[in-house]
């Protein structure tokens, strides 16, 4: 028995061969098509490593060793491209590793089939199994691959840029260097950045909370109003939020900017009526709270209709019996709203609410379009204004001032914060904790 157990634990030689070289085990299992294909993959990968892959991976560490001299036509290393190619190669290595692992598992499976005395699958049978038996795998692997290429790789690239000195005066043909956590240190220690980040972060948080609440309760209120029995011509009234929702946001914001600019009709009328002083401006160098309030208003104008549509759909599923029972127990309209409507809507919309919070936290367009003048309030901020959100500041630093590495470091801090907040809020939400409540 002991001997038999040892034999059982020992790896079949086909698996060992597949460990040594992809496809070799399959060849010895007489699966020639699959074996040759896997061998071709490994040969291709090894050739790729020899001719480019190793150099690409080395490039991630060095970020180039030879500086180009464009005026002499002397080509050199482009650190940014090397970083991008390096990341791509690492991803290809991971992909190859996964294929290698699959190859070993396949060899082990086939060896086991042989040991059991079963017939070995032919190449066409293996293909059929993949198409029909593991269709989910085939269909999901393509989107995953695309997610890796178009989402994860750029994110990794941006994240790695945060650890370099890329940007400002260090752009190709100059070589970029790894600087470790220096950029994060700069953000929190250099007074210009530290003061600006504290001020903007405080405002950004307030903006996200207030704008989300405003949009949410505004939309819910509107939905309840349109749901009210006493309201006549409901379809007619619903046209207006649809219009506000259908017009592209930046057009609405440009309209708001025109209406509330110093020479615009709103300011003109308010001045004429004596409601504001001659000096008052909504959009000016000194405008802070007036423009912030205008921002909340514009954001609500754009976002409330979408929440209203969502809430209208959810409210149509409310169990009316609960309200009847509540009214029999003597509950008034407010109590019904607080204890019945709100928990029900909140339960159903918590993920949307969270999404709205993240969207508002990173709401780039509102103040970008409301305050288009490219002058910064350098008295109090570094390349920013008192209405800028973190995302606007990152834009100023990266697109406008080309401080890429600092922008990346800020983006990472922002990402970490949002990821933690989103996870904590979601884990504590009724949607997650009381999943079965309304089932």
């Amino acid at each position, binding site marked *: 028995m002991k001997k038999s157990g040892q034999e059982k634990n020992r790896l079949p030689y086909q698996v060992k061969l597949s460990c040594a070289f992809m496809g070799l085990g399959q060849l010895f299992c007489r699966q020639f098509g699959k074996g040759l294909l896997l061998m071709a993959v490994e040969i291709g990968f090894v050739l790729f490593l020899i001719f480019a892959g190793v150099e690409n991976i080395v490039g991630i560490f060095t970020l180039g060793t030879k*500086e180009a001299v464009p005026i002499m036509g002397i080509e050199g290393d482009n650190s940014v491209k090397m970083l991008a190619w390096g990341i791509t190669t690492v991803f290809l290595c991971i992909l190859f590793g996964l294929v290698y692992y699959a190859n070993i598992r396949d060899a082990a499976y086939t060896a086991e089939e042989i040991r059991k005395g079963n017939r070995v699958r032919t190449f066409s049978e293996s293909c059929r199994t993949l198409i029909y038996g593991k269709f989910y795998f085939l269909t999901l692997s393509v989107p995953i691959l695309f997610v890796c290429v178009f989402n994860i790789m750029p994110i990794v690239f941006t994240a790695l840029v945060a650890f370099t000195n890329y940007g400002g005066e260090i752009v*190709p043909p100059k070589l970029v260097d790894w600087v470790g956590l220096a950029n994060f240190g700069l953000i929190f220690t250099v007074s*210009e950045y530290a003061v600006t980040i504290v001020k903007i972060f405080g405002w950004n948080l307030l903006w996200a909370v207030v704008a989300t609440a405003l949009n949410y309760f505004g939309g819910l209120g509107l939905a309840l109003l349109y749901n009210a029995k006493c309201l006549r011509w409901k379809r007619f009234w619903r046209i207006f939020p649809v219009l506000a929702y259908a017009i592209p946001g930046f057009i609405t914001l440009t309209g708001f900017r025109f209406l509330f600019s110093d020479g615009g009709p709103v300011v003109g009328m308010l001045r004429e009526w004596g409601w504001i002083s001659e000096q008052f401006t909504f959009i000016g160098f000194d405008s802070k709270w007036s423009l912030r309030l205008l921002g909340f208003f514009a954001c609500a104008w754009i976002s409330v209709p979408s929440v209203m549509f969502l809430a209208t759909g959810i409210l149509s599923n409310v169990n009316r019996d609960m309200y009847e029972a509540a009214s029999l127990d003597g509950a008034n309209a407010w109590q019904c709203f607080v204890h019945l409507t709100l928990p029900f809507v909140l339960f159903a919309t918590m993920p949307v609410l969270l999404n709205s919070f993240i969207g508002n936290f990173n709401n780039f367009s509102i103040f970008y379009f409301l305050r288009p003048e*490219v002058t910064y309030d*350098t*008295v109090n901020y570094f390349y920013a204004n008192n209405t800028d959100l973190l995302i606007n500041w990152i834009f100023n630093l990266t697109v406008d001032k080309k401080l890429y590495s600092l922008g990346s470091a800020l983006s990472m801090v922002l990402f970490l914060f949002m990821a933690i907040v989103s996870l904590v809020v979601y884990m504590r939400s009724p949607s997650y904790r009381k999943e079965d409540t309304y089932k």
Partner: protein
Amino acid sequence: MRSVRKGCVCLCLLLATASMAACGERTQNGTFSYEELMAKFEGGIEQNATIRVLDNQMAIETGHLQEILDAFNERYSEYNVNAVDANMDQYVDLEQNGPDGYGPDVLYQANDMLMRYAEGGHILPLPTEQLDISAISEATMDAYLLETYGLDLYYGMPVAQQSTVLTYRKDLLPADWETRWDDDRNGVPDMVENLNDLYAYSLEVKEASGGEKYGLYMSLLDQYFNSEYLLSYGAYVFGETSEDIGLNAEGVETGLNLFRDMAGVLGSHCISQDATTQAATYLTDANGTAFCTIGTPDWLMTFRENLAKTYMRAGDDAETAARKAEENLVVVAPPDLPKDGNVKKELTNAAEETFEPVTMGGVNAFAISSYTKYPKASLAFVKFVSEYENLKWRSEALGAVPAREDLAEELGGVSEMLGERVAGGKVYMMPSTRDTQYIWPPLSSMFNDVATDNTTRDNPKYTTKESLRAVLDKLVEDIRSAMALGKS
């Protein structure tokens, strides 16, 4: 499975070792002689070359660029060279796009931008012995001089000079201007000769029209034009090095206070970048919304075109409208400034109490991208556009002030006036260094802050000399911060 794990670990170690072992020393590419640097321009023009030319928006809109491209292609037809419009934004960033293989082969930009590229190695030094630079002043050429590999090399072929001029509508002058607004009886309205009278006239127009019309209309955020108020009272951008920033030099607060006073009469509508484009409309509309504006000489062509359209809408035929527009739009030197900085006072002897301002200037040039595949064809194009006759053609078509002194003299008018101002040291050339990029945002922000102070601020902050000095000191501090962080 243990052997699989071992294999994976071995593979990782192998890759890591290979990577670390390959981490070599970074190498520089030594120095080069003048002959080596210019070798790419030797020999005949490349056959079948297509060169992308980036010119300014006005050259494209007026059709001049296409005309010059056609003329060049015809001249070099034996080489089958095809020069085409690069069809890119006129402020395309070669630093960003060049290494990626985008960008033009030949580009036309101002000296601060081009020399930023030169410092980064993105444009080629030019073989000046092959170019006709004899009629270009040393000061103008020096805007494109950069020491590279121990050699004094020029990176641009100067074509046009830029500085500030005042453009006004003669037909909008008050009927009694000769008695009321020409104290020195020299036949030139006082309000275009000195800023005190322009201030007074602007105030009068504003009050009479209930704020609907302007005497002077221009953007109060434009750092380039408004820097005149600082430079005229002793400011300078950089001294010997960019460490020495002189925008807060002694006495500059007087000029800043003058700017603040001007902002008060121009009003909050001018605190906008849009005001620069609005000026073209306000100066040329049928209502005569603005009497004058301060800008660059090449705006004149747009103004003339707009005004001619206005006259045509009023019933004039095209020829009459064009003639009237040409007659009524007058370009003069920027108005003299009060020596004591008091723009509100009435002058008793303008010649004694005012002085000629110092304005910011620049030199626009054609340069060749380092990333061009056709350096010889590109150089041929630069030579072609800088020929005397072609420069004259350009100046006449675009209203640009030529960099060539002999041509400026021949053209007379604005070209000659500006040439004299440059020769007289009244034009401060934008420093030809990449550090210049750090001065613009803080400067614009300061102008915004100070202009707001005298227009829409409930409690003005900059009412004393000390407060204005403090804001200038803060400006320099901000520029230093931006510079330090940009280089960190």
